[in-house]
């Protein structure tokens, strides 16, 4: 594989320069003006700390732990949230029954569930996963519900006159594909919220490993360069997850939408 450097520079030159410039300013300010590792570790300090956690292998256990917490949350939220949104979107009575409960629970900030997470699950991965779940479930339910509400009537009617009349078939063949863009958007929003909840849950001692835990732990040790490393790691992993998800959804699931204005 030959990489065309000229082309890459032409295409991404401005973006790359911008990042380099920002890092340079950061390094300069930290190193020459602030001159205090506690207040603002420099770019170089962060690089050194990063190499330390890579060498001693801490980065891998923490990343894996955090991803495990995140996975528990997203899987649970998906398994529960999508069917809930479907039932509410398709059956009026179900919506009337469930909507008040959801509307009462929804404004509770997910982090408020942390005490119960600990009481119910102890200091386990499940507890952290539960807090992530609490943050993710509502965006998924609500977007699935909205997607189902907005299924164009003409698709449902066209399906009916073509012999697709049972609710289960209409949901499977018409409503789910039609609502998929909305469901995917809900999952994306949920992943953003879930990622924040993850850090908070780990910070509050639900877990003794994980990226969020390390931020708090290193803060106690006044190792702010490490705090910054973990912050940046959280940012990058969050970005990667989002990019990967978006790529998958756009390329595989929503190919039929390409070209239309979203």
């Amino acid at each position, binding site marked *: 594989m030959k990489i065309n450097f000229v082309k890459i520079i032409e295409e991404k030159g401005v973006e790359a320069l911008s990042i380099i410039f920002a890092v340079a300013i950061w390094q300069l300010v930290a190193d020459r003006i602030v001159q205090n590792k506690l207040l603002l570790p420099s770019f170089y300090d962060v690089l050194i700390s990063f190499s330390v956690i890579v060498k001693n292998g801490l980065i891998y256990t923490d990343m894996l732990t955090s991803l495990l917490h995140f996975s528990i949350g997203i899987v649970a939220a998906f398994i529960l949230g999508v069917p809930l949104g479907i039932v509410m979107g398709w059956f009026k009575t179900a919506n009337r029954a469930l909507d008040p409960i959801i509307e009462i629970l929804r404004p509770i900030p997910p982090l408020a569930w942390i005490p119960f997470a600990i009481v119910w699950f102890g200091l386990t991965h499940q507890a952290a996963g539960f807090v992530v779940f609490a943050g993710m479930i509502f965006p998924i339910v609500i977007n699935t519900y909205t997607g189902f509400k907005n299924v164009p009537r*003409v*698709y449902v*009617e*066209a*399906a*009916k*006159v*073509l*012999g*697709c*009349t049972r609710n289960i*078939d209409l949901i499977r*063949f*018409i409503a789910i*594909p*039609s609502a*998929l863009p909305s469901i995917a958007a809900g999952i994306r929003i949920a992943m953003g919220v879930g990622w924040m909840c993850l850090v908070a849950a780990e910070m509050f001692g639900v877990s003794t490993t994980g990226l969020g835990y390390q931020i708090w732990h290193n803060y106690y040790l006044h190792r702010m360069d490490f705090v910054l490393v973990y912050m940046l790691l959280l940012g990058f992993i969050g970005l990667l997850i989002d990019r990967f998800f978006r790529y998958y959804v756009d390329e595989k699931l929503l*190919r*039929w*939408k390409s*070209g*239309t204005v979203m």
Partner: protein
Amino acid sequence: MEVRDCDVKMGRLNIKNVSRIFTKKEDGSRTEALHDISFDVQDGEFICLLGPSGCGKTTLLRIIAGLETMTSGEITLSGVPITGPDPKRGMVFQQYSLFPWRTVIDNVTFGLEMQGIKKDEARRQVEKYLELVGLGQFKNSYPHELSGGMQQRAAIARAFANEPEILLMDEPFGALDAQTRNTLQDELLKIWEQKQVTFLFVTHSVDEAVFLSDRLIVMTSRPGRIKEIVKVELPRPRSRTSPEVNRLRDRVLKLLKEERFSR
């Protein structure tokens, strides 16, 4: 072969004293959309429903499709009363109704898949319908890649794939430009001659109705009643501009004009 085909399909439609009253939930006010409609459609006949907008012609079509209920009356297709949607009664909508998440061919196979036919087998079976509407090359395209006229062609193929006894068309060419519209009318007649399906075609274009139909049913403004049933005894293939056509068009336009003033 052709004769046997006719025998099997039996798209005979009988509409008897059909009325439809819509009741508004909020204030209980009632609007009569259809009043005591009765007419019969012979097997293989091409009927156009014509009337001022809001006269209930679409409502009537939707009742026949089983998507809407009637307040009173009875409709039978080949002697069987209509209770709900059924693949025997195909429908083409005015809005683009192709499923955007399915390719053209998978849209056309949809009806067969619902009957439990495997996708590969269904694909083989619908190939001829795609050829019929001239979309063979575009079978793997998604609807958003097609023009409006092509989308309606695909919708017609999709309706035909179920081999319905009657095809209900709700202003299917209403959103198309005049040129495309004429082409599609020609193609539709060609298909009709090949397939001998009964057609019930709602339109507000007098030209279209005169060009297409064996009989055209002119409806009054709300509540919709039958004003007159006009037999179109013009030989096919028809010209769009001959003196006979113009005379007939004139007559129908006058009927519609009366409705405008009697409001």
